[in-house]
C-alpha cells in the first residue's frame, strides 16, 4: 500500500473540509472495496477520510411511506433492524446474502451504492424500489444516480448521507452467488409499487452495471407471477461474459432469478 494519511472526522462538514485540503483524497466507509484496491496499489489516495463513525450517518428511520437508511449503517445492523424487516423484508434478505458475516460487520449501504460495483447487491434494490439517494448537497433519484461501471452522479467531494426507499406493495430479491467472491453472478430485485408500477433491476449481469429489465417489467405488469416469465426472452446484448458464465447464460439467469424473486415477494 502506498503511504497515506488517515483522518476520522466527527461530522460531514469536517469530512468535506478535510477532503478539500487533500491533494488526492478518498472517503472511506467499511473499506472492503477501497482497502483491497489500495493494497494492490491500484489506488494511492493522499488521504483517506473515514466517515464510517460519523454519528449522523448511522441509523434507520421508517414512516408509513418510506424507509430511510443512513449511509454508514452497516450491513449487519441493516439485516437485524426491526423496521427494515417489517417494512421492506426484501432488503433484509438481500443484506443477509451479501458478503460473509465478517464483511457484513464492516460494509455500509452508502459505501456500496457510492462504489456502484457492477455485481453489488444494493444498487439493484435502489433502482427497483425507485429510491432517492440523499447527499450533503442534494437528493438524486435512482434513475439518475447510476452512470455505468463504478460510475455515479456523485461529485468528487459529495457524501451520501442516506438512502430513502419508498415502501412497496411487494418486493423480492434473488441472486446466484459466485461461490468464491459471494458477489452476484446475477441478482434480480423485483418491486410492485403501491402505485401499481412494476420495476425490476438486475445486477451482476450488464457490462454497464445495474440495469432495469423492461421485458420482465412488462410481463409482470400483465401478470404478477413467476409463471408469467416462463417464456420471456431476455436479450443478451450488452451482458457480461467471463469464465463464470456467457452473456446468454446471464440473460437466462435474469429470467430465473426474477422468477425466484417474485416467488419470494409473494
Amino acid at each position, binding site marked *: 500500500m*502506498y503511504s497515506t494519511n*488517515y483522518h476520522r472526522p466527527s461530522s460531514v462538514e469536517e469530512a468535506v473540509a478535510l477532503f478539500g485540503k487533500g491533494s488526492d483524497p478518498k472517503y472511506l466507509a467499511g473499506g472492503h472495496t477501497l482497502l483491497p484496491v489500495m493494497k494492490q496499489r491500484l489506488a494511492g489516495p493522499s488521504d483517506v477520510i473515514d466517515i464510517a463513525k460519523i454519528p449522523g450517518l448511522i441509523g434507520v428511520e421508517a414512516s408509513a411511506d418510506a424507509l430511510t437508511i443512513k449511509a454508514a449503517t452497516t450491513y449487519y445492523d441493516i439485516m437485524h433492524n426491526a423496521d427494515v424487516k417489517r417494512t421492506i423484508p426484501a432488503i433484509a434478505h438481500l443484506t443477509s446474502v451479501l458478503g460473509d*458475516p465478517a464483511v457484513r*460487520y464492516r460494509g455500509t449501504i452508502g459505501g456500496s451504492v457510492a462504489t456502484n460495483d457492477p455485481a453489488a447487491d444494493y444498487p439493484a434494490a435502489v433502482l427497483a424500489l425507485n429510491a432517492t439517494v440523499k447527499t450533503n448537497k442534494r437528493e438524486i433519484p435512482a434513475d439518475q444516480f447510476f452512470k455505468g461501471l463504478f460510475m455515479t452522479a456523485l461529485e468528487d467531494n459529495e457524501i451520501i448521507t442516506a438512502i430513502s426507499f419508498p415502501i412497496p406493495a411487494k418486493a423480492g430479491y434473488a441472486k446466484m452467488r459466485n461461490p468464491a467472491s459471494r458477489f452476484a453472478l446475477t441478482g434480480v430485485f423485483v418491486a410492485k409499487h403501491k402505485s401499481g408500477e412494476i420495476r425490476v433491476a438486475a445486477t451482476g449481469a450488464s457490462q454497464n452495471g445495474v440495469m432495469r429489465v423492461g421485458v420482465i417489467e412488462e410481463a409482470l405488469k400483465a401478470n404478477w407471477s413467476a409463471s408469467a416469465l416462463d417464456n420471456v426472452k431476455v436479450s443478451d446484448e450488452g451482458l457480461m461474459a467471463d469464465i463464470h458464465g456467457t452473456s446468454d447464460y446471464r440473460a437466462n439467469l435474469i429470467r430465473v432469478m426474477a422468477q425466484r424473486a417474485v416467488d419470494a415477494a409473494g
Partner: protein
Amino acid sequence: MSKISMTVNGKAVTAEVEDRTLLVHLLRDHLNLTGTHVGCDTSQCGACIVHIDGRAVKSCTTLVGQANGANITTIEGISKGDELHPMQAAFRDNHGLQCGYCTPGMIMSAIDIVHRHGGDLDEETVRQELEGNICRCTGYHNIVKSVLDAASRMKVAQAAE
C-alpha cells in the same frame, strides 16, 4: 505517522505507526501476536479474523486508524491462563484442525457465531456462518463438529454462571 491507542487482549497498547499500517500487521509485527494469520490478504479467507469491540472482522482489511480506541481480542486473548477457551478445547477434542493455519480465524469467527446465535446452533447455520473462513485442508466436517460441540459447552457454562 500516527499515535495509536487501543486495548489488546485486555492490555492498553500504544504505538507510533504509519497510517497505512493494517491492523493485522500491527498485531503481528509490532505486538508479536503472531497467532493472527494473513492468508489470502483479499478479505476472503478469514485467517486474519479478530474481534473489534466484540465483532469478528478481518484485520487484513482494517487500517489501524479504524481500530484506534477500540477493544481488540485476538486468539492469544481468549484462554484463561492454561485453561483453553471452550471453543479451543472443542477444536482439540474433535480434531477440528489439520495444518492449523486457518484455525485462529475459525475460532474467532466461531466464538462470534455462538455469541450471536446462543447455544442452539444447527449444522446448517454453522456452515452458512463460516462462509467467510476458508480451510485449504478442506477439514470443514470436523470444524463444524467442533463449533457445535463448543456451542453446547458454552451454553452449559453460561447456565452455570
